[in-house]
C-alpha cells in the first residue's frame, strides 16, 4: 500500500478534464496526484513533423496510448446514397448494409486526446443546455450558461484562445484573450460561397496562439494540428493546464498508471484507487477525494467494473452520444493548397441553435475541414481524389494537385436507449478488467440532421466554385467517434442522473466526475474540450470550497 504522500485528491485521467481539474485544485492550494493510463509524449521527438516522411506519420502510437474497446454490432442501414462514405479513389468505405463500427478516436497519455485534437475552443450554445425544457428531448443541464461563463473565461485565459469579438448567443463577460487568426486562402474561397448563401462565415475560436502567450510561441500555420503540435502553440492540456498545475509545486503526474478499480469504503466514501503497474502488479493508493476524468467511454467502464459504483440510478453507461460528422471534398478550378493555414480556421454557426435546422431539433455547424480531411499530402490526394491508375491518373494528379477544398459539418446526436457503454462479457484487459463495449445507433432525427449537413456542405462547396465532389464521409455508415458524451449524466435528480450539477456523485461524497460523460446533451456541434475544461474548473472550485 502506498498513499503516504497524502494527496488531497487523486485525479484519474490527464486529458482536458483531468488536467483542468488538477490545475483548478492545485491553484487553490490542494495537492493532486494526476494519473493516466497512457505514456508521456515529447513533442520534439514524438511528432517533429520536419522529416520528408511527414505525410506518412500520424499522431504516434506508443505502448498504452490507445485503450482497448469493443463494439456492439453496427446498426442496419437503410438507403441513403447521399450519406454513404467513400471517395472516387478509394471507393465505398462501408458495405452499405450495416454501420461500420471502426473506432473510438482517442489518445491515452499526459494531455489525453487534446494531444491530437484540432484545437477548436467552443462554448456550448446556451439553448442547447435546455433541450428537455425547450424542445422535449434529451435532458437539461442542471444550471444555465451563466453559471459556466466565468470558468470559460478562466480556461480561455490559461489556454490563450484566439477568437472574434462576438459569437452570437454565446455572450461573454470578457473578450477572447487573443485576436482571431487570419483566414487561410482556402477559407477565404469558401467564405465567398458562404456569403452567396447568406451564411455568416467567420473566424473560428481556436486553442492555438495568434500571438505569444504565457511563454508559448504563436502558430506558424503548418496545418498539421492533428498530427501533434511540435512547437507548443496548440492549447493541448499538457502545455496548458497540466503545465500550470505542475508550476504550483502541488501536482504529481504519473504516466502509465491505469486505474483498474475504485474501492468503496464505509459511510458512502471512496477508500482507494487500485493502479496497475507495468509489471502486472497492483498498487493501492488511499484516497481522500477522487476525480474521474477518463472520458465518456472509460469513466463508465471504470465505475461499472468497480461493482457498479455510483450507479444507483442505473444511468452509468447510458445516454451515450457521439457527435454527427460530415466531411465533403471537392475540386476547385483554381489551386487552393488548402493544407496551408490553421485547420478549421473558419466556421458558420448559422444552424447551431437547437431549432435552427428546418424540421429537425438539434443543431450543427459548418467549417473549413481541409485540415481534418487528412489530405495534406500528395500521396493521399493522388489516391483519394483521383481514381484509377496509369498515365491518365498521373496527368490528372499533376493537373489537380492543390485544388482540393473540404467542408465539414458537426452536429448534435440526441441520446437514445440503444446507444450506451457497458462491459464486454468476453473481453478483458491485461489486469482482467472487462473492456468497454460501445453501442451506437442513430435515430431518424439524427439521420435527417445528417442529410441537412451533407446537402448544405455540398451547397457551400458549389457556391465557392468547387463542384467536382470526389469524396464524402459521414457518421451515418461510419462510426469513428472522436467526441463522446453522456454516459454519467449530471442532473438534480439522483434517480435519473449519476452526478449533481458540480460533478459530485449523488451518493459517494468524495467521488467526482470531470469529463464529457456528465454532459446531458452534446450541444449543436461545438467541440467539447473547452466546455469539459470549464466544467472541471467549476468542479475544482466546488471541491475546494467544501
Amino acid at each position, binding site marked *: 500500500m502506498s498513499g503516504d504522500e497524502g494527496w488531497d485528491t487523486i485525479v484519474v485521467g490527464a486529458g482536458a478534464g483531468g488536467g483542468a481539474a488538477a490545475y483548478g485544485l492545485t491553484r487553490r492550494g490542494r495537492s493532486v496526484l494526476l494519473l493516466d493510463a497512457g505514456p508521456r509524449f515529447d513533442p520534439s521527438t514524438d511528432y*517533429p*513533423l*520536419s*522529416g*520528408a*516522411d*511527414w*505525410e*506518412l506519420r*500520424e499522431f504516434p502510437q506508443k505502448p498504452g496510448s490507445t485503450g482497448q474497446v469493443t463494439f456492439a454490432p453496427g446498426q442496419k442501414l437503410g438507403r441513403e446514397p447521399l450519406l454513404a*462514405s467513400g*471517395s472516387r479513389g*478509394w*471507393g465505398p*468505405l462501408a458495405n452499405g448494409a450495416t454501420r*461500420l463500427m*471502426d473506432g473510438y478516436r482517442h489518445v491515452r497519455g499526459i494531455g489525453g486526446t487534446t494531444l491530437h485534437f484540432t484545437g477548436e475552443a467552443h462554448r456550448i450554445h446556451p439553448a442547447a443546455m435546455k433541450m428537455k425544457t425547450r424542445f422535449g428531448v434529451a435532458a437539461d443541464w442542471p444550471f444555465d450558461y451563466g453559471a459556466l461563463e466565468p470558468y470559460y473565461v478562466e480556461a480561455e485565459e490559461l489556454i490563450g484562445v484566439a477568437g472574434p469579438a462576438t459569437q452570437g448567443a454565446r455572450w461573454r463577460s470578457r473578450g477572447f484573450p487573443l485576436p482571431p487568426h*487570419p*483566414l487561410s*486562402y482556402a477559407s*477565404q474561397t469558401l467564405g465567398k460561397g458562404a456569403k452567396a448563401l447568406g451564411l455568416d462565415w467567420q473566424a473560428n475560436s481556436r486553442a492555438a496562439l495568434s500571438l505569444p502567450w504565457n511563454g508559448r510561441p504563436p*502558430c*506558424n*500555420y*503548418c*496545418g*498539421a494540428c492533428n*498530427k501533434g503540435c*511540435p*512547437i507548443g502553440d496548440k492549447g493541448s492540456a499538457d502545455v496548458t493546464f497540466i503545465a500550470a498545475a505542475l508550476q504550483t509545486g502541488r501536482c504529481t503526474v504519473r504516466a502509465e498508471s491505469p486505474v483498474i478499480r475504485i474501492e468503496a469504503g464505509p459511510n458512502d466514501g471512496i477508500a482507494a484507487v487500485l493502479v496497475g503497474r507495468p509489471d502486472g502488479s497492483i498498487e493501492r493508493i488511499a484516497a481522500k477525494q477522487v476525480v474521474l476524468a477518463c472520458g465518456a467511454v472509460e469513466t463508465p467502464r471504470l465505475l461499472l467494473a468497480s461493482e457498479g459504483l455510483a450507479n444507483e440510478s442505473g444511468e452509468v453507461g447510458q445516454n451515450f452520444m457521439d457527435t454527427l460528422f460530415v466531411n465533403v471534398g471537392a475540386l476547385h478550378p483554381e*489551386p*487552393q*493548397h488548402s*493544407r*496551408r*493555414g*490553421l485547420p478549421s480556421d473558419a466556421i458558420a454557426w448559422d444552424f447551431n441553435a437547437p431549432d435552427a435546422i428546418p424540421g429537425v431539433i438539434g443543431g450543427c455547424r459548418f467549417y473549413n475541414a481541409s485540415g481534418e*480531411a*487528412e489530405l*495534406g*499530402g*500528395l*500521396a*493521399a490526394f*493522388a*489516391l*483519394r481524389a483521383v481514381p484509377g*491508375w*496509369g*498515365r491518365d*491518373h*498521373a*496527368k490528372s*494528379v*499533376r493537373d489537380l*494537385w*492543390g485544388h482540393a477544398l473540404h467542408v465539414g459539418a458537426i452536429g448534435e446526436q440526441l441520446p437514445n436507449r440503444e446507444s450506451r457503454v457497458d462491459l464486454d462479457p468476453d473481453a478483458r484487459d491485461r489486469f482482467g478488467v472487462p473492456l468497454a463495449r460501445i453501442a451506437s445507433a442513430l435515430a431518424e432525427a439524427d439521420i435527417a440532421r445528417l442529410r441537412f449537413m451533407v446537402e448544405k456542405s455540398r451547397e457551400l462547396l458549389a457556391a465557392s466554385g468547387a463542384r467536382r465532389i470526389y*469524396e464524402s*464521409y459521414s457518421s451515418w455508415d461510419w462510426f*469513428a467517434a472522436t467526441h463522446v458524451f453522456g454516459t454519467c449524466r449530471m442532473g438534480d435528480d439522483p434517480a435519473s442522473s449519476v452526478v449533481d450539477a458540480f460533478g459530485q456523485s449523488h451518493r459517494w461524497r468524495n467521488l467526482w466526475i470531470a469529463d464529457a460523460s456528465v454532459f446531458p446533451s452534446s450541444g449543436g456541434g461545438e467541440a467539447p474540450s473547452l466546455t469539459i475544461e470549464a466544467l472541471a474548473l467549476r468542479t475544482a472550485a466546488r471541491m475546494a470550497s467544501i
Partner: protein
Amino acid sequence: MKRRHLLALLGTFSFGGAAAPWRLVATPLRAPGTREHVTRSMAAVAETMFPGDGLPGAAALGVHQQVLAVPDLQARIAQGMAWLDRHAASLGAADFLALDQAGRLAALDAAFASRDDGIQLFVLTMRDHLGTAYYSTPAIKSAFAYTGPPQPDGFADFQQRPS
C-alpha cells in the same frame, strides 16, 4: 479518413483468410527463379500503375521493392501475380510480363473488374501501397508545389493565392 484506417479495413475484407493462400504460395516463392519472376512482375505492375507522366516511373524509383518488402503482403502479391499470369495466358501470352504496356493496363483493369476471390482487393492494395510509396518519393514530391514538411517553417503565405 486516415490511410491506416483504410489499410485496416482492407485487411478485413475477403482474400478469404490470408493464411490459406500463404500456404499455397509459400513453397513456390522460395523456389529458384520464382522470386525473380515476382519481382519483375511487381516492377511491371508498379510501372503500369504509376508511369510518371514525364517524371520517373515507379519501377525506376524502386517503389516495387519497398512493397515487396512488406511481410504482410507476400501472400496477396503471390495470389495476384498468379492471377495476372493466368489472365495473360488466357490471351495467348506467356505471362503478364510478356504483355505490352497496353496489355498490362488492360490486365490490371480486368483484375479490378474480376469477381474472383481477392483479386479486386489485390489491385486496390497494390494501388494504395505502390501509390503511397511513389508519391512519397522525394524525386516525385519535388516536382509538385507545397509538398514539404509542415515544420519547422509552417506556411507564411497561408493567406495568399498559392505561388
